[in-house]
């Protein structure tokens, strides 16, 4: 088990390193001089400019620049955000928890909804419920994230104004609310973005889940279980569901990149102050170091997610566990 984790960790490090290198190459290939721009920018503090020049080694050959870049990344030094007038790391630290909150809620909601849908469909294969849920799943699966967000906003924030249109808390006033008021305010703001994200992600999960479920349901041990005379319900719950959940764990790893993508649009539409919105704002502000840092952080998140999924999978699947020992 430990060996498995160690091996996967090492792989993760390699993967993140490659991703960071790709990002570095991207910056090098870009037209203009994105880093040089920052160094000659009078709005960036003089000593920060000097440090930047040193940090990026702008006057040195590319391979030395690359070495410097890697060293800075390893130290967690992500550079200076021109648009925020502060270190990139500070901006990320502010935004990350907000994104995590939204994604966490969405992930849990989507898994419950997605697995349930998948199971119902597989269990009642061919029924009206299966077909209706199938059509619904496909409908949401085919929908652009931002459009569902806009439609949700149109209906529930403008036409029937029961939820706020944007933000994570009521601007300004929130700071002066009582603790209970603060909680309620946050929940009200969370409903629309989280629901949107849940629906989109649940559609993806349900598609995989139904296939996985059917796959398992036709396997030998299920047939054996049936032959033993177990009730259909017992078969479903005890044998099929447990085994069909395995691929769902893998899906956890897959869901993260989708979630990150979805978060970009949904945070943008609902002005949710997370990483997704930060990246859109950074692009509009031409803040290259901030954009790059978010891309690298995004890939770290995704890699960690799939690492976690692999470990969970190993824990859940006795065959793998045996093997890993």
């Amino acid at each position, binding site marked *: 088990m430990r060996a498995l984790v160690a091996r996967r960790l090492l792989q993760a490090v390699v993967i993140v390193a490659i991703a960071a290198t*790709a990002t570095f190459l991207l910056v090098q290939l870009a037209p203009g001089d994105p880093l040089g721009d920052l160094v000659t920018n009078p709005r960036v503090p003089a000593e920060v400019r000097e440090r930047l020049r040193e940090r990026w080694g702008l006057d040195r050959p590319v391979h030395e620049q690359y070495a410097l870049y890697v060293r800075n990344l390893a130290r967690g030094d992500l550079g200076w955000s021109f648009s925020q007038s502060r270190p990139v790391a500070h901006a990320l630290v502010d935004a990350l928890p907000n994104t995590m909150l939204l994604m966490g809620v969405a992930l849990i909601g989507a898994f419950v909804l997605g697995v349930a849908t998948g199971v119902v469909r597989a269990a009642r294969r061919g029924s009206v419920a299966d077909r209706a849920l199938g059509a619904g799943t496909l409908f949401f699966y085919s929908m652009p994230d931002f459009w569902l967000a806009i*439609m949700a906003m149109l209906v529930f924030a403008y036409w029937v104004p029961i939820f706020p249109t944007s933000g994570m808390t009521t601007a300004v006033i929130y700071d002066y609310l009582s603790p209970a008021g603060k909680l309620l305010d946050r929940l009200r703001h969370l409903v629309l973005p989280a629901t949107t994200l849940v629906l989109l992600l649940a559609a993806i999960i349900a598609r995989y889940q139904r296939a996985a479920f059917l796959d398992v349901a036709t396997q030998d041990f299920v047939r054996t279980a049936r032959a033993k005379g177990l009730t259909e319900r017992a078969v479903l719950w005890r044998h099929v569901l447990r085994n069909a959940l395995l691929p769902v764990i893998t899906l956890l790893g897959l869901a993260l990149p989708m979630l990150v993508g979805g978060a970009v649009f949904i945070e943008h539409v609902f002005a949710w102050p997370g990483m997704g919105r930060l990246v859109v704002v950074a692009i509009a502000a031409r803040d290259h170091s901030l954009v790059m840092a978010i891309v690298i952080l995004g890939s770290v998140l995704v890699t960690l997610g799939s690492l976690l999924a692999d470990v969970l999978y190993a824990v859940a699947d006795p065959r793998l566990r045996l093997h890993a020992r």
Partner: protein
Amino acid sequence: MMLVRWALAIALSAAVAAAVGRLWARMGAGGGPWGTALARLRRDRGGMVALHFLLFVATVALFARWLAPFDPNVQLDIINLASRPPSVAHPFGTDIYSRDVLSRVVHGTRISLSVACLAILLSITVGTAYGTSAGYLGGRADAVMMRVIDALLSIPRILMLLAIFALWGRVSLGALVLILGLTGWFATSRLVRAQVLSLKTEEMVVAARALGARHRRIVWRHILPGVTSTVVVAATLGIGNVIILEAGLSFLGVGVQPPTASWGNIISDGASNVAGLWWMSLFPGLAIVLTVMAFNIIGDALRDALDPREIQPA
């Protein structure tokens, strides 16, 4: 007049759909894995409805100029015709610049569809080439190539695209296709490689190798035909994703550049006032959802027919 043209377009797409159906039936009679798959597809009601719809959308894209009631970029009357809700003259309303939204959606269909199709074509080609090479070469080369794919897949695609656009700024349509295509082949290559690995051990290939056939011949004759179905299904399912992605980028203002209309940037034009200009998000959005859904239905049907295993969209 306009109605007649639209009726003609519907009739044309129906005729083509019927012809395609007949063709499939004939191929189905011929047998073989593709033949049985197509025959099955023809019996799938949902799949046929989706096919009809897609052919209609393709017709709209092809004849956009004749089907759009107005020039999509002309500001008809910025004083009196701006921000009008749907009416008989403008079924999808007008935008804040008094442009006809229906005409923009029609022309946007052309742009969005061709960008998506070309991008998918590019990803599929690159992905197949890369995956085949990795799988066929095997060993260390394969291991390295796959680690690179893992890393590239670990960067969420939307973030990668946003980073590219942040650095390159506004790009031309051709560059957009290139960028979308070159960031979309990673998953396909993994699929293809897996398929190639299993094909490599099949008797035919082993025999050909033993007989000393040249690599090129083995790849073209035995390996590539074996991965076609995987690739076709991945492409069909992938088009939907690319359409959504392009729409998203255009919505954020970095994809298709104004005044050229794409489904995404029409929605973006209306996003400044979602409540007051609801028709600007509703109609192009529906166009996206229905088209993507149709592609996915056909992709699902193809997958069920061709290959029971999971194929992830490109």
